[in-house]
Each structure stands twice: as structure tokens, then as C-alpha cells.
């Protein structure tokens, strides 16, 4: 195969991956089966890695595929699979189309930055048992938050405009969907990252991927020992410099015919532009290979067999593995109280935030969720909302069940089926119906029936298990009464309760999800159909 076609293959793969990955984050019509969604996210490195350590299953082995690919050919993930990488390529492509004279040039590796951004999140992970550093930097999750929080509302808005036009023509093929805005502050992080990657990719190609992205840096370490690497062939190269000008990663140094393969994102633009076929994949053992194992010339890392950079790389990889496996062992003993609000007479006292069904509890959830917001995109009721400090600052952007926005649909298990990290584990519909996320609390003094002698019953009406029932009160009125044992903590009562500012009924989250008892049933006497009409 001629290596020039590699770029075409890469572009096709990239378009497939970004459209599929983008679509699952903006779709609101549940057009794709959950199995397909799982397939689309299968190769995403960090979610797969986390999922693997949770389930120890081959279904979560996508990251192994990526590791093997990287050891073979370098950072294929970065240009063909990573949605944030492909998104940046799209920005660079637009720049190329609008500004004719765009040229990349070799840049020195920003080793302090890139290794810093690799080590720092891992230190946070080890020291604080918090994923926050990893979450904020993981490219898949950054893309997810941008697509879910920023692009999905735009997509729905567009859909609504088109649906409106069709409706006026009496066609109801599309339907309008409500846009449920999240709290303003939750947009700050995705908006900032969107601005940052656009700026970087517009001006400096893949600068983000080679200075900030910890996945890129980690795969870059592996790339140094890849079996096939892109290198330049000394006799053929005329030093025309076309490859370096085309290199978004700024990793080709013409002067010394070097390719810093640790920074190469595998876009193959260099291969496709070279008029002499002098830059291409070569086996690492080949004598013509000038790509160096260490850093490029000019960097402080000395090169050669057994060089310290390589040792450093391996050590870091092992450290990462240990860190992740160590942290993957669930243990509830170090649980800390997330939030303790001062109780008032009528203000609901919520000791813990509510985590989604299938997430087992706060600890399991917060130590596995990368806050990619795929569950938020998928949630049909928008009860899943990005958190700010619900889990403490270290859990920022991780989703929580926000019962002021909506409530969890009793029959729905969508979030449990799409989560790519294992933070929300798949739940069967029947198991979900007895999963208790929290328990109902009633403040009778706040209840409109009790306070104003007027009928309501909104809480009980919404309750799927009748953990809140209406019992006879006075003047034909009925008053809510709670049965916490059968409550699933779906939040329907809290959402539906009409009183303000404090609700009369609410759900206090569980630290660890419990099993709800099944509601008691009794056989009803069937009516006699032969009976006369009572009027």
C-alpha cells in the first residue's frame, strides 16, 4: 500500500468518529440504540481505562486496543479517534481554507508543561482520591462537555425552528423539545475549554495535544518505543520543508531530519505532501530511520539505548497503572461528608447529593465519572445536571440528580446503559425500580394541604411506588404520608411539590444506594358486571 493514502484513511476514520461521537452527545430523540452508543465510546481511552478497572471485563478493553495501536504505529488515537483532536483539526482546516498562507513550523517540545499536566492529575488522584484533574484535562470528556452543554442546546434550538416550520405546514415528523438550561456557572468550564482549544488549534495546530492533554502525553511516551515510526530517509529528502510546514504537531525538524514521534499525532499530512516519498512509516529497527527515540535535538533529554527518558517513560506508565488499579478498589471507609447544611425548621435538610441510579453511591460515582456528560445528553427528563459544589469542588462538573429541574423517570434506565466509564453501571429495569437513591422526607408544616386547608396531592400523584400516599384529613381533604422504605428517591414528589420557597417534600440522597422494599399489593375485588348502573 502506498503510504500517501494513509491520510485519506485517517480523514475518513476521523469524520466517522467525530460525527458518531458528536451525534450521541447532541441527540435528544433517542435515535440510536444504547448498544451502538456503547460501541461508539468503546475506544475512548480514559473512559475505557476507568471502566476496565471497574468491571475487569473485556467489554471495556478499548483502551488496550489503543495501547496496542500506539505501540505499533504511534498516536493513531489522537487524529482518528479522539473527538477533541478531530475537532481541533476541523478548526485548523477552516483556518487553512480562510487564510491561504498558513504554515506550521517546528517547535520545541514543552516537556515541563506536558509532563506536568500528566503528573499533576495523577498526584491529585493519588493524594486526594479525586478525578478532578483527570476530568478537566481528558480530551474525550472535554469534548463531551462542550458537545453536551453547548452544542446540544443549539441543535435542539435548530430542530425546534425546523419543527415549527413543518408544524405550520401540518407536518409533525419532527417535534419541538424544551431546552432545559443548566445553572449559568456550569457553562464556564466547557466554554473556557472550547475557547482555548479553538485558539490553540487556530494559531498553533495541535499545541493543546502536545502541551496540556495528558492522554496525548501518555500515548506520546508509548510512541517513543513504537514499532513503526514516521521518519525521514536521508538520501531521498531534499529538505524542501513541505512536511514541516504541513505538520500540525510542529514535530518535524528539517535541519536535522528528525521527527519527534512522541508529539506526532498521526495525521499523515507530511507523508501526503512529500514530493520525494522521503518521509513515511519505517520499522524502528531500520537503519535509515532518523527519528530518534528520545526527544529531538535541542531538548535536554539525551538519546540512545537505555536512555533516561525512556526509563522515565516506563516508570510513569507503571505508576499510572498502579495509581489506577489502587484507586479502583472500592472502599467506603474513607467516605467524607460532602455537605452538611444547617438545619432550619422548614428548610429541607439535604445531607447528601443524589447520584444517578446504577452509580452505587457517591464514592463509586465520583471516583469513576470523568464528567463527559453523555448521561446528561441522554437523560430524557434532564434531571441529570452538571454539579458545581454538590460533591465538593473536587467533583465539579460531575452530574447529579437535580430535583429542582425534573425527576427521574421510574421506567427509564438510559443513563445506566450509556455511561462509558463504569461510573453508572448498567441496571435492569426491574433492578432499577428497587434501587433507592435517597429517601423521602416530609415537612408537613410546609404542605399546602396542612397550611391552607386546600386539596393538592401532587407529590403522591407523581410517586411511582406510593411511598407518599394521601391519607384522609379533614373536610374531605387528604394529607401526604410517607413510607420511606419503599421510596426509590426518584425526586418526583420534590419536583411536583407546588409550595415555595421551601418544598414540603424532598429527597435526601444516600451515601451508598440502598435497596427499596417492594410496595405491598393486595388483590382487589373485581366488580360484578351484571350489576345495574347506580344511576
Amino acid at each position: 500500500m502506498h503510504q500517501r493514502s494513509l491520510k485519506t484513511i485517517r480523514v475518513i476514520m476521523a469524520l466517522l468518529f467525530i460525527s458518531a461521537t458528536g451525534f450521541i452527545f447532541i441527540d435528544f430523540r433517542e435515535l440510536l440504540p444504547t448498544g451502538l452508543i456503547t460501541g461508539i465510546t468503546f475506544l475512548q481511552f480514559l473512559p475505557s481505562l476507568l471502566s476496565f478497572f471497574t468491571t475487569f471485563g473485556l467489554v471495556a478493553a478499548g483502551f488496550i486496543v489503543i495501547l496496542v495501536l500506539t505501540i505499533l504505529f504511534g498516536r493513531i488515537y489522537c487524529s482518528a479517534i479522539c473527538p477533541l483532536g478531530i475537532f481541533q483539526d476541523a478548526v485548523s482546516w477552516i483556518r487553512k481554507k480562510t487564510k491561504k498562507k498558513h504554515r506550521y513550523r517546528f517547535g520545541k517540545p514543552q516537556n515541563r508543561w506536558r509532563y506536568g499536566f500528566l503528573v499533576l492529575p495523577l498526584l491529585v488522584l493519588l493524594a486526594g482520591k479525586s478525578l478532578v484533574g483527570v476530568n478537566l484535562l481528558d480530551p474525550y470528556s472535554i469534548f463531551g462537555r462542550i458537545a453536551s452543554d453547548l452544542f446540544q442546546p443549539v441543535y435542539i434550538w435548530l430542530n425546534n425552528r425546523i419543527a415549527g416550520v413543518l408544524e405550520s405546514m401540518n407536518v409533525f415528523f419532527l417535534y419541538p423539545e424544551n431546552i432545559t438550561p443548566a445553572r449559568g456557572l456550569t457553562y464556564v468550564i466547557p466554554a473556557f475549554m472550547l475557547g482555548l482549544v479553538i485558539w490553540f488549534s487556530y494559531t498553533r495546530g495541535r499545541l493543546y495535544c502536545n502541551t496540556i492533554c495528558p492522554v496525548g502525553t501518555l500515548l506520546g511516551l508509548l510512541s517513543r518505543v513504537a514499532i513503526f515510526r514516521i521518519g525521514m530517509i536521508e538520501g531521498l529528502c531534499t529538505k524542501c520543508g513541505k512536511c514541516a510546514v504541513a505538520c500540525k504537531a510542529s514535530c518535524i525538524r528539517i535541519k536535522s531530519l528528525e521527527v519527534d514521534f512522541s508529539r506526532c499525532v498521526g495525521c499523515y499530512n507530511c507523508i501526503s505532501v512529500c514530493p520525494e516519498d522521503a518521509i513515511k512509516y519505517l520499522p524502528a529497527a531500520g537503519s535509515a530511520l532518523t527519528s530518534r527515540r528520545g526527544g529531538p535535538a535541542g531538548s535536554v533529554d539525551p538519546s540512545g539505548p537505555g536512555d533516561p527518558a525512556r526509563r522515565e517513560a516506563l516508570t510513569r506508565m507503571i505508576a499510572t497503572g498502579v495509581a489506577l488499579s489502587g484507586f479502583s478498589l472500592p472502599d467506603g471507609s474513607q467516605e467524607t461528608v460532602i455537605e452538611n447544611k444547617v438545619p432550619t425548621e422548614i428548610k429541607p435538610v439535604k445531607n447528601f447529593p443524589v447520584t444517578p441510579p446504577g452509580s452505587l453511591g457517591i464514592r463509586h460515582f465520583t471516583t469513576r465519572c470523568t464528567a463527559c456528560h453523555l448521561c446528561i445528553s441522554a437523560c430524557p427528563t434532564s434531571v441529570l445536571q452538571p454539579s458545581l459544589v454538590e460533591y465538593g469542588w473536587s467533583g465539579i462538573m460531575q452530574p447529579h440528580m437535580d430535583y429542582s429541574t425534573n425527576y427521574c423517570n421510574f421506567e427509564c434506565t438510559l443513563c445506566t446503559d450509556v455511561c462509558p466509564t463504569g461510573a453508572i453501571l448498567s441496571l435492569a429495569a426491574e433492578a432499577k425500580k428497587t434501587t433507592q437513591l435517597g429517601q423521602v422526607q416530609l415537612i408537613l408544616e410546609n404542605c399546602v394541604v396542612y397550611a391552607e386547608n386546600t386539596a393538592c396531592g401532587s407529590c403522591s400523584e407523581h410517586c411511582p411506588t406510593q411511598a407518599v400516599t394521601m391519607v384522609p384529613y379533614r373536610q374531605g381533604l387528604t394529607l401526604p404520608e410517607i413510607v420511606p422504605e419503599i421510596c426509590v428517591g426518584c425526586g418526583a414528589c420534590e419536583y411536583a411539590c407546588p409550595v415555595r420557597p421551601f418544598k414540603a417534600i424532598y429527597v435526601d440522597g444516600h451515601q451508598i444506594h440502598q435497596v427499596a422494599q417492594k410496595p405491598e399489593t393486595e388483590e382487589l375485588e373485581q366488580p360484578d358486571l351484571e350489576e345495574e348502573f347506580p344511576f
Partner: protein
Amino acid sequence: MKRRDFFRKGIGAGIAAGAAISIGPGNKLFAGAAPMLDYDLVAVKGGEPGTMFDQAIQSLGGIEKYVKKGQRVVVKPNLGWDATPERAANTNPELMARIVEHCLAAGAKDVYVFDNTINEWTRCYKNSGIEKAVKDAGAKVLSGKSKGSYHEIAVDGGRKLKRVQVHELILESDVFINVPVLKTHGGTVLSLSMKNLMGIVWDRRWWHANDLHQCIADITTVVKPDLNVVDAYRVLKKNGPRGVSTADVVTMKSQIIAENMVVADTAAAKLIGKDPAQIGHIRMADEMGLGSMDLSNLKINRIVI
């Protein structure tokens, strides 16, 4: 003149009400085998939902009495919950389909079905079986979740409710057929024709905080369905309006049809063994002169299949 124009122009509730029912009585153009009396109430028992409707509507003179050629009809079920038909939390899909068929056979231009659901609407539409049933029958199914489709109207005769946002389909369609399901209700004892109107308004949560029964009675001063069909085939006898499981359901194989909501709801309440006077909104509507709880002077057709 479209219904919405009536409301928009602020013509009094009485006139609007009169207009809404003006299509009704005294129109006997059709030919039918059954004796045609001006029944105020038809009660059917013992058949399948579709069959019961066939017989009941025939005894009223056929759907043609209500639906004219080229008219736009809205058939509004109770479709509040993500529950299967067996759970009886929603109107029976077979009945819904049959009503749609009748309307289209009578020459209706379009038949629309929607509800402002309580659970997530796409799941309610799908799992209730109603979306498929009525689409197959030829109806157009719409979401009731677009705030922009609700328009504020004045409730001049309302005691608590002074203004309310009503779905444009109700305001604009020529015919409104209200198809509630008879069921128990934790807050309002029963959920019937009048209560079903909470699915045509947007701002219903306010009702819960502001004398629910009175608000339900109030809206009936401005919104008057042309026909009310109370589905009592499967009846949620316990844990209504949502129910927990099929253990809460009894099979009554019955149906109540009436033009007046107070009449329909009174009969339906009696059918399930409740005293209508104990149900706030029925009593209030009666007091406000919107209909009578006294069925003794009405012409009632009782059909047993």
C-alpha cells in the same frame, strides 16, 4: 371564526360556552337504525372499548352530530403517565383509535391527539399504546410540551383562576372531544372529565398551590368539550392517578358519554361508588351552575352489551 379568536377577543365565557355547544343538539340530519332521543347521558357496559363507543355514539345520533365535514378535531386523552394500557393510568388506546376513526369517517379534516403529560412525554405516548393506535387510525400526534403552543385566556367566571394558558389546539380546533379515564386520585379523590382539562393547560402547578378543586371547576367556565367520553374499561381503583402495578386495576368494562362534564363526572363517580358531592370540583361546578349533579331528571340511555 376560530376558537382562539373567541377567547382572544375577550368575548364572555357564556358566549364562548354557547358557541362551543351550539354545534350540538337539534341536528338530526343523519339516518340510523337506533331510536334517536336527545340523551343527556349514555352509559354502556359489558363490551370492548371500541364496541361500547360504537353503540353509545350511535344512540346519540352518531359522531356526525358533533363532527362536520372538513372540521379540525382534537381528541384529548388522559395520557399523563409512562405506563402500559394494563395499568389503566391512561385512556384506553383502543377507545382512542375508535374515536379517531369515527371522526375521520365523518369527514374531519384533521384529528389531533395530544396531552401535556406528567411523565416524560415521548415515553408516555409510546408506552401507553396511544401514539401507535391513533396514528394507525389516521390521527396526527403532537407534543404537548411546547410552552409556545399555550396561549393565555381570561377566565371571567373563575373564582380562583382568573387567567390560564391553554393549548392552541383546544382554542383553534372546531371540535374538542375529551376522553378521560376513570380513576382514583390521591389529591382530588377521582380524576374525570374536568380533571382531564389539567392536561390542556401549561401552568397547572399553580393550581395545586391555589385551591386545586376551585381551579378545576373554574376552567370549565371557559373550556367546554363538545363531548366527554369517560373510559371505564379498566379502572385504577387504588393508588391513582398513576398506580403502582396492575394489582391496582379492576376491569369494569364500562363507558360514560355526555356533553356536559358535570353530568359525565357525576355518573362516573357513582359508577365507581363515590359520592360526587364529596368531590370538591364536581360540587363546585354544580354550585356555579355549570351542570347538575342531579341525574334524576336527565334522559339517560343505559346500554348493556
